[in-house]
């Protein structure tokens, strides 16, 4: 069985929440994205983190969005241990859930 290569976030620029959402929208089942590398549970804590406040805020939002995507059935979240207190956090795209389409015009009519 072929394994989809992992797409890593560019090291020069950490992945943002909106970029993660864009990947979720575009990913097909089995695509994998490494959305963070480090120790997420520690890195979001102000006392222990090596990140600046804006970076930590963005990481917190990214982690929350990844969890949301998993709860919506859009991705699986897994971790790969790279070393001591060092992990690769992966999102694996799931098949898009089938939902009945909703008509925009009926929504707008109902709101008018």
């Amino acid at each position, binding site marked *: 069985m072929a394994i989809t290569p992992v797409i890593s976030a560019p090291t020069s620029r950490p992945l943002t929440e909106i970029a993660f*959402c864009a990947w979720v929208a575009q990913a097909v089942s089995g695509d994998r994205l490494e959305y963070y590398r480090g120790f997420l549970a520690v890195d979001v804590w102000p006392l222990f983190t090596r990140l600046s406040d804006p970076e930590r805020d963005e990481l917190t939002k990214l982690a929350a*969005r990844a969890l949301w995507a998993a709860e*919506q059935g859009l991705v699986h979240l897994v971790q790969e241990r790279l070393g001591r207190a060092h992990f690769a956090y992966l999102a694996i795209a799931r098949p898009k*859930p089938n939902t009945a389409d*909703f008509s*925009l015009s009926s929504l707008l009519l109902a709101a008018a």
Partner: protein
Amino acid sequence: MHPPLSRADLATLINEANAAARRLHRKLALPTADLDDLRQDLLVDLICRLPGLNARRGSLGAFANIVLRNQASRIACRHHHQRRAQNGTLLSINVPLSGSREPIGQTLTEADGLASWYGQERTTEDDLEAGLALSRALARLPEADRRLCAALAHRSVAAIAAHGFGSRSALYRRIADLRRVLTAYGLGPSWDEFATA
């Protein structure tokens, strides 16, 4: 209240407005069909300002001249501003370009629309896919968010806040969150843009 206009006064106003419209029309190099619109705009503005006429300070003709000159100047400024915003003048799609027999409209393809001039090239397929993505995204949204989206289509955030959707700051937070959610459902920037940036 201003006394009713005599026939002679009315004729003066119409003549002055006609002359001003022709001057402005020539100066802006507008299509022939726009002359009547200009004439009407100038005349209506002039009639609206008639209560400001003081007969002791000057004749009706002099008053009309000043009012028309100012209004013509405002119209010209607006027109130049529009031209700058559109990167050039407007052309009728029913007239041929110089050296051509066909009207412009017949020489344009679907990709030659105004949006494509600004780098937002869209085809019928794009519109169809956007419509489908929108239907799917709406289906996945919770009912409360759906109602918020529908309300935002018609009203401003301030108006929605007044209709019981919560405070303005809470609404802005919800909208920011919705932007992420809709992006994850395919209604936002594409991953390729982030990957190549």
